[in-house]
């Protein structure tokens, strides 16, 4: 709290401050005389508390100022992957980004994630993203009769692919990747993460089918180790490492 003439904060009262959000809007319907598909910046001011997240601010706008603001969200604590967006030029989940960590003194810019077609405001078409995920055959492939009980797996073998099982398919990584921006063909880091999860699962036998797919023109070789994906991942997955491991498997011929 600044040293203004405000009353002493009550014990336990949470600090409150004003933040400005600058949101890149996209109007698909063409209301108020706009062309359908117009993009424009709009600024909103909201009152916020120290524990508030960008999602809370977006809700405050939607619920109190402009109900037409559209964005996806569900769980509100970073596990469903609905609300990846570009906040202050970085991909993050709105529900995991505290306003106070963003220098609230300056307007906070909020844009849809890049590289996927925008549908309305912060909502993009996720279909191409999910299509890449489907392309890498993200399901266990095993041959032979299913065992009576569980397939055995040592804790070490389980640990091998733990990191990439955390993925919530939020697309923050893929839409942060500069190679994905240049050329919509790249499968993108998420698809590689999705494949990694199975390639290094000791129970899976489809690893070479997946590696062959990732060996493709649109596959791992497109990655230029820009590291944006790793920096963007809200689950803390070492995405670039997963990609490197896939590349190593392909160059060495060993998983």
């Amino acid at each position: 709290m600044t040293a203004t003439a405000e009353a002493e904060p009550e014990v336990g009262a949470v600090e409150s401050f004003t933040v400005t959000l600058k949101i890149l809007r996209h109007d698909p319907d063409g209301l108020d005389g706009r062309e359908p598909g117009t993009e424009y910046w709009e600024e909103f001011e909201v009152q916020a508390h120290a524990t508030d997240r960008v999602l809370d601010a977006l809700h405050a706008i939607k619920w109190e100022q402009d109900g037409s603001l559209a964005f996806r969200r569900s769980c509100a604590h970073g596990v469903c992957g609905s609300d990846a967006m570009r906040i202050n030029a970085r991909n993050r989940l709105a529900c995991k980004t505290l306003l106070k960590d963003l220098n609230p003194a300056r307007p906070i810019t909020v844009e849809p994630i890049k590289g996927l077609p925008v549908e309305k405001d912060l909502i993009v078409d996720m279909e191409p993203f999910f299509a890449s995920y489907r392309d890498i055959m993200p399901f266990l492939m095993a041959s032979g009769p299913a065992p009576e009980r569980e397939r055995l797996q040592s804790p070490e073998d389980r640990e091998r692919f733990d990191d990439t099982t955390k993925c919530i398919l939020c697309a923050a990584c893929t839409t942060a990747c500069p190679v994905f921006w240049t050329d919509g063909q790249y499968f993108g880091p998420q698809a590689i993460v999705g494949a990694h999860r199975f390639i290094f699962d000791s129970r899976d036998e489809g690893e070479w089918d997946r590696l062959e797919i990732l060996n493709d023109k649109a596959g791992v070789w497109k990655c230029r180790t820009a590291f944006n994906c790793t920096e963007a991942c809200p689950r803390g997955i070492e995405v670039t490492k997963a990609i490197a491991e896939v590349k190593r498997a392909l160059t060495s011929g060993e998983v």
Partner: protein
Amino acid sequence: MAAPELTTPRQRPANLRTLGRTQRWGWMYQRISGVILIALIFTHLFVNLMVGDGVSQIDFAFVAGKWADPLWQWWDFAMLVLAMTHGTNGMRILVDDYARRPWLRATLQWALLITMVVIIVLGSLVIWTFDACPLDSSGDLMPGVPSFCESVV
């Protein structure tokens, strides 16, 4: 109660294998050629620009002097080939990334390829057919007969 059958994977497009290979070798080539190039180029730069009088010493005589030695001939030849292939391969990746229209992409790829071949051929010709002692030229190119031309004279 049974889990849904774990069926065999779906068919994938037929020509992945060959396509994939190109990408993979391309990637590995960048790395291998890169490492070798480091040694080649830095020595080259060092010799040309740092030893002696640096850039100001470079003239016909300097070049001629170097190429009289087969070591430098091979050296420069390797550098030429590696750098050009590495560079062209790199440029190919760029074209892939930015040129989205197929015809544009194809045109640029061909242009790259042709440039590469032309430059390598040109460069090699110069290095290998280079005549360090052009007898018909006027003497002022090389004041006095350099030692390496003595056998010719």
